[in-house]
């Protein structure tokens, strides 16, 4: 958690990242449906071994971007690459090592969960015919569906369907796992399980791309973040770096709010009252553009303001996300 604040919310340059192998890469990727621009020229590098959280409001192009990366949709312009192979030209080389859950779990209602998985396993190039039964059992247990495996998919709850989709992505060890809204319809225990699975995959050296609108999930599990808005990438980079850019300056907890604001504004600093509930201690926030932190505190102490606490305010991803995707008015 080094906090050397870098104040650029622009997409992170690929400079340092290009040295490491890329698990996925988008270069000027663009997709239009008629007049609608779903994805508008996205450049994105996903370093191998990272866990990339893809954030964005509904309709921001997350799924379309993922579909292009997987070769399910041809881009209107630009190029996609998966595990070093151009997509869709060399899909057959990359995709065997890729597990994916895209746009919800797709299974046949008249087959049991186990039968559905067996069918999926039969199409996996890297799975030996003799290994199918074992792989299916292992995947079912991994997602907690062992007991419901022989019930028809038709009767599964939304969460169970989601778990089965996850199981299909985890049928064999993967280099890259792509999960599109994996926690959809899951109860808190299921959400915890998904977090656990992502952590296991990460620990095993796999790359994970997970799209979500549950920001807390992304903040808890990801090393990298890409934020999309209206088809454009508005921020991308390491989670820590992005969090650091979210500093709102210095947050000073004090009972003498009025005095503090007067003093700071008199010294030419941007200062405003922090939003607090009445139960909490009052605080002011000082912008980065004015005097430096030691100076601010010295000013306040000299003016007789009781400084109870001073800290860099780190916005969490929620604030960052809200800020980045807000329409500028």
């Amino acid at each position: 958690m080094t906090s050397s604040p870098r104040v650029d919310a622009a997409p992170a340059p690929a400079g340092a990242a290009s040295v490491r192998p890329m698990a996925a890469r988008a270069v000027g990727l663009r997709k239009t449906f008629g007049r609608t621009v779903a994805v508008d020229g996205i450049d994105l590098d996903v370093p191998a071994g990272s866990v990339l959280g893809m954030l964005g409001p509904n309709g921001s192009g997350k799924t379309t971007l993922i579909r292009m990366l997987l070769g399910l949709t041809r881009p209107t312009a630009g190029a996609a690459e998966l595990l070093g192979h151009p997509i869709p030209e060399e899909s057959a080389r990359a995709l065997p090592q890729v597990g994916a859950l895209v746009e919800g779990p797709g299974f046949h209602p008249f087959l049991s969960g186990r039968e559905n998985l067996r069918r999926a396993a039969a199409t996996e190039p890297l799975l030996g015919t003799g290994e199918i039964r074992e792989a299916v059992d292992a995947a079912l247990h991994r997602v907690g569906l062992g007991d419901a495996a022989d019930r028809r998919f038709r009767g599964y709850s939304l969460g169970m369907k989601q778990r089965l989709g996850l199981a299909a992505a985890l049928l064999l060890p993967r280099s890259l796992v792509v999960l599109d809204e994996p926690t959809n319809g899951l109860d808190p225990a299921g959400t915890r399980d998904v977090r656990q699975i992502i952590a296991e995959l990460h620990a095993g050296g796999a790359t994970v791309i997970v799209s979500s609108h549950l920001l807390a999930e992304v903040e808890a599990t990801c090393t990298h973040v890409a934020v999309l808005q209206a088809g454009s990438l508005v921020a991308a980079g390491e989670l820590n770096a992005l969090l650091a850019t979210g500093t709102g300056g210095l947050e000073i907890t004090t009972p003498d709010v009025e005095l503090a604001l007067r003093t700071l504004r008199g010294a030419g600093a941007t200062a405003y009252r922090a939003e607090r509930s009445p139960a909490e201690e009052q605080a002011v926030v000082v912008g980065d553009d004015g005097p430096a932190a030691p100076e601010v505190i010295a000013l306040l102490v000299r003016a007789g303001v009781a400084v109870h606490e001073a800290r860099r305010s780190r916005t969490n991803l929620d604030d960052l996300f809200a800020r980045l995707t807000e329409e500028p008015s």
Partner: protein
Amino acid sequence: MTSAVLTGESLSAPHNAPLGRLLAAELRWVLRRPRTLVMLGLFALVPVLISIGVAVANRTPGPGAGLIGAVAGNGLVLPVAAMTLALALLLPLAVSMAAADAIAGEAAHGTLRGLLIAPVGRLRLVAMKAFGVLVVATLATLALAVMGVLAGLVVVGGADGQLVTLSGTAVSLGDALARVALVVIWTVWQLAAVGAIALAISSFTEHPLVVLASVLGGLIVFGVLSAIPALEWLQPYLLTSGWTAGADALRDPLPLDNMAASSLRALCYVAIGAGLTIHRMLRRDA
């Protein structure tokens, strides 16, 4: 470690699941679908119902008409009659149902995505799906033929286990069964033509009903067109215009020219359907 996974494995790894395994999985999927089984059961019932109808009608005086009339007292006509009757609408319905489920149905369930991500190569996917449709066509036709022979011999009986041809001669049981087999092969090939077109439509939509409606609508339009005398020049191009050739198997000596001509026509439809399906599936979004 990750770089080893990235480069080492991907170069040596097989890029396709074995074709036999794919076909087996498809077969399993087709045969586990309840509607396939119900449909096959119904096809098995068709010759039985005809045989009962003929047996009952036989007790009342008055000659039966057409192919069904020829079944009376001549059981080995039944399988050929059943296949010829079913080819008009029932068999194409079964085949287009299978083709509708094969691609449009998979797309509607979101399972087409899974197949493409696995990945099943797009050409292999077409092969796998064509195989599934052909299996349904074959099983449905066989259900008609096998139950037709059985019901014909048991319920209708007649002619000392021989087949009396429409030309009035009698042929042996073995010869008759060979003729039934010939009609089975010819019928399946005609259905392959229907299936190829249905798959092509299926590859353009994710609504299975569109496939059913198009194929059945198309057959009806073909029927209407062939009934208009001014459009007689159109006859050689209509798949359905050769569909009475199956009854030729009941003539002696066996005339093969109609069956050959309609088989050639079916080949053209298969080529067009397969071409369109492949063209579309190589580009289709999932």
